[in-house]
């Protein structure tokens, strides 16, 4: 589904951010992307979506190379939940925001509305439907942002810090929502507990390189590995409670 082949990247000004990163994600897999601040997690997502140009190496999404002329196809395949929901929602109401993608992809108003209602029901957000985007709480906005992406029915979903700044209850809602999705998932986060709950496999980035790639259980229990890369054991495995 998603393949990175020896990808290196640096922003115009400065040191390389990614160096020779390679991995492959199979359809239906749920993968956590972890690493300290500035490790390059968001950069990987932006490269995948073609928001940044891939200059070295090759990136494939669903067998299609990510380059300028394939972008519409790539973006149809991938749904991206941004780190900051405020940047994602631009229509006046949740409903209109959710209609945006399906309508752009040529669905009729009725079809799109059916889809929107189904997603809202699935996430238990029906009462948010006609609320104004600037009058809902941060957690509700995050859920709404996820809903807007699900409404476009992507084959794979990318999420950048989906659990950040959520209360335990909303965090749990997001985790349940993620676990309820059947598509391929790539989730970047520092919230290792959430990764453990939602992903079967983990990619660990450090200093622009992929330092570990394996089952979530193994990597997230490897205290030495995590600490060497400026992270800690997930709280639930740390034995402190």
């Amino acid at each position, binding site marked *: 589904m998603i393949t990175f082949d020896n990808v290196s990247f640096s922003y115009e000004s400065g040191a390389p951010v990614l160096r020779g990163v390679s991995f492959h994600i199979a359809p239906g897999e749920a993968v956590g992307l972890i690493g300290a601040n500035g490790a390059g997690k968001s950069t990987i997502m932006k490269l995948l*979506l073609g*928001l940044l140009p891939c200059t070295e190496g090759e990136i494939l999404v669903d067998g299609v190379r990510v380059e300028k002329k394939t972008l*519409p196809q790539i*973006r*149809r395949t*991938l*749904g*991206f939940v*941004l780190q*900051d929901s*405020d*940047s*994602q929602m*631009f*229509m*006046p109401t949740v409903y209109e925001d959710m209609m*945006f*993608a399906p*309508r*752009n*992809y040529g669905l009729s*108003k009725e079809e799109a509305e059916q889809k929107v209602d189904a997603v809202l029901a699935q996430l238990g957000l029906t009462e948010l439907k006609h609320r*104004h985007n*600037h009058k809902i709480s941060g957690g509700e906005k995050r859920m709404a942002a996820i809903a*807007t*992406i699900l409404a*476009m029915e992507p084959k794979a979903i990318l999420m950048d810090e989906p659990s950040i700044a959520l209360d335990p209850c909303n965090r749990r809602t997001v985790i349940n929502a993620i676990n309820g999705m059947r598509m391929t998932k790539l989730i970047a986060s520092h919230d290792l507990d959430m990764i453990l709950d939602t992903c079967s496999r983990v990619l660990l980035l450090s200093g622009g390189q992929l330092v570990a790639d394996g089952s979530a259980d193994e990597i997230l229990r490897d205290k030495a590995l995590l600490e060497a890369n400026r992270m800690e054991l997930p709280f639930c495995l740390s034995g402190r409670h």
Partner: protein
Amino acid sequence: MDKINHALDEFREMDALAAQDSPIHRMHPLVKLLITLAYILCVVSFHKYQLSALAVMVLFPILMFQLSGIPVRTCFYKLRIVLPLVCAVGLLNPFYDRAPLLQLGNITVSGGVVSMITLMLKGVFALMASFLLIATTPMDSLCAALRKLHVPSLLVTLLLLTYRYVTVMLREVSVMSDAYHLRAPGQKGIHISAWGSFLGQLLLRSMDRAEDLYESMQLRGFRGEFYYAEVPKCTAGAVAFALGCSAFFAAARCWDLPQLLGNLIT
């Protein structure tokens, strides 16, 4: 903060007004746009002394208020900031144009006073008509109508995005002004020494935000053309209404209706 939130709310209220239901709301946006344009052009073209002829034009907004169910109060409340400006335009006329024009009992009215009132009425009428158009037509439908008139899609998209974007920018202002006031207690407004950095920051943030939003739109299939809102069908009734209005505008423009009426009666 309160002021900005208030501004945001007022913005939303316009959306809410436009989402109501009435014969006028259901009318084809293009028809409404054309009628409004015709009305404004007609109003503006009256001669500066044609006060009585111009006064008849008030019938159109009155009819629209009646049919759309939008309270006149709301209109004047929303326009409270621009109305005085428009009215101020003609204030100097009475001083320049002192030639007597008409005699009401033993009061002589100069040309300047008449032209001042005419100018004010023109402004108020044009504003009311524009308000009625916006208050009965969602922005998306209005843009769809503009596209039908073959206004370039770039311009229309720009208009729609600007409209959407104003709220985003207001939100940004609100966050920044909160942050400022939390560290400058007891200050009213933003101190002049901070304006430079405040505006600079606002610009940078807005640009960042705009870029993010644009990316997020592209990721959801946006290719430079909004799917514009479902446009209601153009009914025979709407066309008849448009023709009726135009005929009335033309008649009011060509003849001084109140005078004709007066002549008939006497």
